[in-house]
């Protein structure tokens, strides 16, 4: 299991919602380190708690609604014990951290990196500002992953 786990998620057939996938692909092409792994998912589900528990740092990557299109951010995450409606198959990163701690007694240091999307319609490819920002955010995530690796 890697020391640093990067998890991109979203729907790659819903335009900007696929930014997390695109960033994971960028990381795979541009970051070669046996201690860092990047994976993409449509959505976060409880079974990922075990993978989290085996990593020391996790960086979630998602698209965000609202805000200036193309604006991106990285912030540290805390575990959260409030989950969403029982209607949804999806859980959020903070709840996943909490699951990791409760089920396996461990939770990694966690970050959430997000990019504000503009177009969540059906299709592939990104709106211009998101497309421009993706490699920039991906590079910042790469630097963060390498920095965190040094601290371990």
């Amino acid at each position, binding site marked *: 299991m890697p020391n640093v786990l990067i998890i991109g998620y979203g729907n790659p*057939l819903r335009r900007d919602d696929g930014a997390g996938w695109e960033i994971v692909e960028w990381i795979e092409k541009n970051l070669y380190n046996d201690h860092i792994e990047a994976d993409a998912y449509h959505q976060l589900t409880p079974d990922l708690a075990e993978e989290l528990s085996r990593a020391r740092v996790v960086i979630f990557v998602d698209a965000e609604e609202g805000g200036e299109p193309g604006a991106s951010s990285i912030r540290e995450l805390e575990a959260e014990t409030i989950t969403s409606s029982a209607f949804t198959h999806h859980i959020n990163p903070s709840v996943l951290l909490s699951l990791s701690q409760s089920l396996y007694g461990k939770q990694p240091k966690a970050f959430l990196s997000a990019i504000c999307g503009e177009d969540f319609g059906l299709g592939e490819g990104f709106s211009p500002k998101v497309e421009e920002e993706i490699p920039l955010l991906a590079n910042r995530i790469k630097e963060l992953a390498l920095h965190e690796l040094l601290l371990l």
Partner: protein
Amino acid sequence: MGKQLVIDPVTRIEGHAKITIHLNDEGHVDDAMFHVTQFRGFEKFCEGRPFAEMPSLMARICGICPVSHLMASAKACDAILAVSIPETAANLRRVMNLAQIVQSHALSFFHLSSPDFLLGMDADPKDRNVIGLLNKFPEIAKDGVYLRKFGQEIIQSLGGKRIHPAWVVPGGVNEPLSVELRDHILDGIPDALTVIQKTLEWFKRSLDDYHEETRTFANFPSLFMALVNPANELAHYDGKLRFVDASGRIVADMKKASKYSDYIGEAVEPWTYLKFPYYKPTGYPEGIYRVGPLARLNVIESCGTPLANQEWAEFRALGRGVVLSSFHYHYARLIEILYALEKIQILLEDPDILSKRVRAFAGTNNLEGVGISEAPRGTLIHHYKVNEDGLMTHANLIIATGHNNLAMNRGVLQVAKHFVDGNKLKEGMLNRVEAVIRAFDPCLSCSTHSLGKMQMQIQLIDRDGIIVDQVQRD
């Protein structure tokens, strides 16, 4: 004055559906509807693409059941190639499809529905969720994660890279199974069987606590539709499509996938984007039928594996002929997990599973192909048309959640009439209205799910549009 009660879940995935309950002047439920408020446009999206790309493209539609779309799509492409794929390839596809059943059912049962069973239908929604489950029943929460992960690992170990899965291809699969991987999967089966048998035992014991829900959760006569194999056993990958009525009598056996439109019509209503498939010979809306785990256990004569056969016999004793209550979708899911684990073991213990002949090659030999498989939520149909160059000119997808649309709507009405007092909303009432939908485990995950506000809004509105009561869950 009549009122309208709206349960409007605004979440990342299912945020594009809502429930409205219409009240009469006395505050009693008059009508209820399950609306899907977002257009699914995947069919149009496919046009112009080479048909060979369809399986991997379709696998990206849904994060919950990508394998199901992969299977139906690959089978439609096999039909365009006009090939009969090697039996080993078909069995490897079966293993992957069954692993999908395990992981998806585990997510539905443990993550979404077991909080209702273990924490109570009337519990505060802040506690009635996976975290609440974890606090009070950590071992059960862990079992759910374990089964889901076991299914996922089989899929990922067979399918390889997660981002662009390309193992299932038109004509078969692109790589044979290794001895090491087969043995690795087989090693995990005994523990997974122990977990699901333990779960079945506690769930069966808890059924006595849910007589009222069993009686009222979409419990009505209807047709049931699912694939069966030539021995009339459970089939998730191929077989004939069977319709049975509420007494269990076989109404139709459809042997050729390409004939589906002789049996299934699709109606539309102006208040929802989700179509209403119906049994054509009976017409709309009388031709209501259900699909999914409950239907699959209702159309067969046995499961076809030893442990699941025993559980199935006990299950079928719940009804005269067939089991009509949709509350028992949950029970059926557990039996299907048991069956899937046993069947994976049987398939992998056959020495031919290691055969190197796993793919048939051909060009465009038919201009049309239909693929039918059983997804976790029910029958999935992919129908493609291509031109002489093999480029897609038409696609029609009938998804499991669509097949159940008529039944979900009738179920919402039945539960609302029984539990909802329109004069004042109470949590338990609303949860049961949601819970009947959850029993079907509808999946609308083709919609966007980016970061954003996740909330559940419930409003009581009169005919003038004035909100007279409101509940909101963040």
